[in-house]
Each structure stands twice: as C-alpha cells, then as structure tokens.
C-alpha cells in the first residue's frame, strides 16, 4: 500500500491548516456561503437536508486497518456511530458539524487520509478495481497508475474550477469491476509490444444524460501518460460548456463535438503540452509501484477447503473470489444485510473489519463501488474462522452480486434533491427476495436505485434499475432493464409507466419470473433480457 513520504505529509498538513482558516473565515462572516461553497466542496463537505455531510477520500478504494480504525473513531466521536461507504469507494458521514470539520481532517491526516477533492468541480478521488493486486485476471496492478494520477490531480492549479466535476477510473483487467466506461475518463492499462500503457476512454457518465465513454486513444505509453491527461483536461476546461450546469460534464462536450474531433483537439494540445516536461520519470512510477508489491504470501498455504458447514459453503460460493496466489482467496464482506441500509456500517463493524484485515489480509481492505468491503488476500485455511467472526457481527450476508446486493443512493432520507426515497425501497426489495435459495436461483442480478435523475445510485447501469420520480407530488418509481456497468457495459431502458413503492416491488418480481421461465442454460437475467428484448418483460409487468 502507498505510504506517504515527507512531501505527501507536508501537502496534506498544509491542507488541514488551509481549511481550518477557510472555516474560521466563514464562521467569522468574512466570506459568504456562496464563496465558501466551492472551498468546502473541494474538501468533501456538502450541505445535506439535515446537516453537513463529510466525504472522506479512500484513494482507489484501498486502505489499511489503522485508517479503518480511524474511520470508526470519527464515526463515534463526531457522527452518530456509523459511516456510509459510497459508490465511488469513499466514506461519508452524514451528521457533521462545520466547526468540527477541521479537527476531523487533522485526525485523518495522522493516518494519511484526507477529504481532498471528494466533491466540487475538480478532479475527484481516482477510483479503481477493488480486486487490484489480487485478481486472477489482471494484467498488472492498476493502483500505481491511480496513485500517480492522485498526485498529479491534487490541487492541480489549472483544473480546480472545471465546468463540472470530473471522475477518473483506472482498471487493468478485462473484467470491469469498477464501471470504468461510465467515468469522465476511464483508463484501462493494456500491453503493447511488451510495454504497459493506457487505453483512454473519455466522456462517460450517468446523471440525467447517461453516456458510455468512447475510446479516444488505444495506447498511451507511460512516458506520455500525464501529458496526455493534461491535454484531455485542458481541452475540456477550455471548451466544456459553462452556460448550463446540466450540460457541463465532459460527456456533453464529446457528444456535441464528436469523439474524433475531441481526440484531434487533444492530440494538438498534447503536442504543446508534451514539450513542457511535466511527465514524472519512470523512477517515480517504480517508487510508487514498490509500495504495491505483492505481500509476503505463504507459498505452502493449503489450497483446499473444508466445505462441510453448508452455510459457510454458500458464503464461499457467493462472496469469495479467485486470487492469483494459490492458497489465497479474495473475500467480499457484504454491507447489504437484508433490511439494512446499503453501504452503512457501524463503528463497531468498521473496527472489526479492520481487525480482521490485520489478522487475515496483510492489513489491507478495499471499498467497492457496489458499497461493500473486500479483504483482498486471505489464506483459504483462514476462511472458516473469518466467516464465523463475520457472521457473529452480522457481516456474513452471502449475497454478493445477487438481487439483494443493492446499490442505493441516499435519496429522500438525506438528500435535498431527491424525488423519492431509495433506502426504504431497497429494504423492501431485499426483504421480498430475502430467501437466499431464491436469490441464488436468480443468480447474478445487479439492482441499482437512484432517488432522482442525478443517478447517484447508478440506476442506468443496473441489470434492473430504479429511478425515483415525482408524480404530482407523490413518490413514484420508474423501472429500467438491461443496464450494465461491467465490461459488457450498456444503459438500461425504461419499461413504461412508473409504479408506487409496493407496485415496483411487484413489477421486479414479475420481471424475474419471466427470466426464470425463459432463461436458457447459463444465462444471467441480463443475458435473457438481451436475447428476448423488452416485449415479454413489458407484457408480464403491465399485462
């Protein structure tokens, strides 16, 4: 894992001091709320319906037990004893006092954490594959590239007042576990002539105009990596729309300009930027990459497992994934207990996960964009004991990628923009499908809920997506089918007229019944939908 050196420490410490000064000036009335807003947003501080929300960055979703314990500590001391893991691999506190924010940042800095650029119209925290460094299918660990970008983008002087927020994701496997092409820039590390470089996709995003990012450049070698991204951002900063907030994301620029024209503009800018010598040398990449060297695996770790406990076996099949190292496995801890709030964890649970990571996973944890937690490097021989401890803490729900592993935005319970509640609906759906045998029969089924058109809950990318709308002052839900945020990326299609809260749960059940009746061998819900199209689903739902 990356560890700060004196420079990183100095920069983050200066930020704490800067923000303390900004908050003091705000509290003293020296700056207006309008002027303070972009400053606090660039530090992850949002004003929600009831209180301030603080979003803490978890760069590319990787953290250690010390950092995880700190998150628990802050939840206890400054919030209400819990935290919320987000779809961008960060953590949010929902009940923060403005006066406390500088102290919280100071505490975070002691464990090399911060809230820098977790909101605002700047380059946000870089996201990545939660299985990085462990996945059996990866080409290389994407995180050194992501860390390089973290440093490049932190307090970037030119790109701190972009037209709109800017999200970058880096992966290095064919399987896309991070919704790479739904980011403003999606990067896949690929190999060409024995050299690693980046395939660059630009202009994806969700929100009210969802778009899948087209490929802009198939290979950018390491030596040009930062220059090329600088060029991508500069073209956006200069030409992205600023007249209408809803058209300000880079996806609209790409859409209006055309991907080819945008790529040509970037090439031209790149020619100018490349001459400036702003690319870090390979030695810097190697320095960063050394922090992500594989842990000291036990080469003799047994590769066999005792599956005799049936509940354990179910969890194994559902929540444990292949590791590149024999004798090891990747564990996903579901934060989606039936009837719970997706992504929430209590301080005690956060502490326990930290302890388990320390004991069983080389002190490493990951946050996933589906709002779960991963222990990336667990000895297979330890899995049973680990599972028992998780079970006792209510953290052993065996539902990874099943219908109850729901992504839901905060919705009307927290968010001032919401049309409808998301969390209670997620709870209702999970409860309706609570039987684990039934869930497993339905197989992989990604269900995602947003409380309004802003799409924080990724509803466009759900195999089943739900969008909260306001219908004459009454909460109403639209149903979408056929989206995917994975390597087979697609955007969902609205089935037709919306539903009440109970009506939407029934509609989902009808859609899953069509799948069960019509699926062919090995088909997931999404595959059956793609083969059959909307018609049979529509008929079952509205017929």
């Amino acid at each position, binding site marked *: 894992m990356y560890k700060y*050196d004196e*420079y*990183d420490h*100095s*920069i983050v410490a*200066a930020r704490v*001091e*800067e923000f303390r*000064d*900004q908050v003091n*000036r705000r509290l003293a009335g*020296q700056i207006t709320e309008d*002027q303070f807003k*972009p*400053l606090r947003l660039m530090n992850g501080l949002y004003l929600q319906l009831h209180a301030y929300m603080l979003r803490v960055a978890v760069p590319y979703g990787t953290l250690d037990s010390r950092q995880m314990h700190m998150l628990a500590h802050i939840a206890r001391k400054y919030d209400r004893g819990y935290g919320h893991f987000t779809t961008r691999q960060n953590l949010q506190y929902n009940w923060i006092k403005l006066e406390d924010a500088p102290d919280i940042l100071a505490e975070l800095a002691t464990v090399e954490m911060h809230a820098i650029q977790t909101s605002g*119209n700047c380059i946000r925290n870089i996201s990545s594959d939660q299985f990085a460094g462990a996945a059996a299918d990866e080409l290389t660990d994407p995180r050194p590239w992501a860390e390089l970008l973290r*440093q*490049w983008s*932190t*307090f*970037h*002087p*030119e*790109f*701190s*007042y*972009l*037209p709109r927020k800017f999200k970058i994701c880096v992966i290095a496997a064919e399987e896309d576990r991070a919704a790479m092409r739904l980011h403003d820039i999606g990067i896949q590390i690929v190999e060409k002539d024995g050299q690693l470089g980046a395939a660059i996709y630009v202009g994806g995003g969700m929100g009210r105009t969802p778009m899948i990012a087209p490929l802009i450049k198939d290979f950018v070698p390491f030596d040009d990596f*930062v220059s090329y991204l600088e060029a991508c951002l*500069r073209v956006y*900063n*200069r030409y992205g729309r*600023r007249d209408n907030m809803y058209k300000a994301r880079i996806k609209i620029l790409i859409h209006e300009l055309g991907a080819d024209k945008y790529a040509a503009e970037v090439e031209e800018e790149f020619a*100018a*930027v490349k001459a*400036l*010598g*702003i690319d*870090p*040398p390979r*030695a*810097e990449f190697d*320095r960063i990459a050394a922090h992500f060297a594989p842990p000291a695996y036990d080469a003799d770790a047994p590769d066999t497992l005792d599956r005799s406990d049936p509940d354990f076996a179910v969890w194994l099949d559902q929540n444990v994934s292949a590791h590149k190292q024999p004798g090891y496995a990747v564990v996903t801890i579901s934060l989606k207990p039936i009837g719970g709030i997706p992504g929430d964890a209590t301080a005690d649970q956060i502490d326990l996960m930290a302890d388990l990571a320390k004991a069983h996973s080389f002190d490493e944890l990951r946050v996933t964009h589906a709002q779960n937690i991963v222990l990336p490097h667990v000895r297979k021989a330890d899995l049973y004991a680990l599972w028992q401890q998780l079970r006792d803490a209510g953290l052993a729900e065996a539902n990874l990628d099943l219908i109850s592993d729901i992504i839901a935005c905060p919705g009307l319970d927290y968010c001032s923009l919401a049309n409808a509640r998301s969390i209670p609906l997620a709870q209702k759906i999970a409860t309706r499908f609570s039987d684990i045998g039934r869930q497993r029969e339905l197989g992989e089924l990604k269900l995602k809920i947003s409380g309004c058109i802003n799409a924080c809950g990724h509803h466009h990318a759900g195999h089943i997506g739900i969008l909260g709308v306001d219908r004459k002052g009454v909460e109403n839900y639209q149903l979408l089918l056929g989206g995917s945020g994975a390597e087979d990326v697609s955007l969902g299609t609205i089935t037709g007229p919306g539903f009440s809260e109970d009506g939407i749960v029934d509609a989902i059940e009808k859609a899953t019944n069509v799948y069960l009746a019509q699926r062919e061998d090995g088909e997931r819900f999404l595959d059956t939908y793609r083969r059959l199209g909307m018609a049979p689903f529509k008929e079952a739902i509205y017929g």
Partner: protein
Amino acid sequence: MGDLLRYRDDEAHEEPAVTLDAFLGQSNATAVRIESGEDARVLLPYLDRIALVEVSFPKFRDGRGYSTGRILREAGYQGELRAQGDVLVDQIPLMRRCGFDSFAPEAPVDEAVLAASLARYEFHYQAAADPAVPVWKRRHG
C-alpha cells in the same frame, strides 16, 4: 474595486488594455484583454511586443482563464499577466501557479489572508507555469 496586486518588479503598465478584436485589428497596441471564452493562442504571434495581458474572470467559478494563463506562459510570454474580475483570495495561489503575476480583483482582498495562503504550501505535486519544482523532481533529482 480592489487594489491592484502585483508580483513584478517593473512599473505597472499604463496603457489601457484593448479587446482582442481591437488588438488584432490595430497592430500597435501593447496591452490586450481576453474574455474567458476567447482563444489565447491567437496572440501567440505577437507575444514579444505585448506588455500586458488582462484575463477576465467574470465569475469565480469560470476557470477557463487558468488555461489561458498557462498557454501564454508556456508559449514564452514574459509580460504582465493580470487576472481581473471575480478573483477570490483563495484562488490567487492557484493563479500564481498558472503564471499570473498581477491581480485586479473586483472586491478587496485581505492581504494578511492572502500572504498566509501564498506561503502555505511548501511543495506542489505537479509542474505548472511557475518556478515551483514538482515533488516528483525533488524525489528523483
């Protein structure tokens, strides 16, 4: 109107800045004003005879001027580069890094706050249009 803040040793330029169109049509002007949507690159052929470029920041949220500043500096412009308009104290350190060396903020700036914020960051991660040595270069010489 706030005071003019300058980080240059030479005398402030007296000639009023003309619009970009006027500049391009009138070959002897030495001061030009660029609106936030205008393309600074059209000035590149004339840089050695320009003494002042004033870049407009109509709203503090409009960040196009940061790119304008860097483009001019990166092309070798040595004259005064002024940020004019809705320029806030917390933005000036970023603008300094983009090559601006004078500021005409619409509202007065608290100089003590500004001095503290200009001195705050000892290190910067990335290279820009100021003399700061990026952290990666410090690490590797």
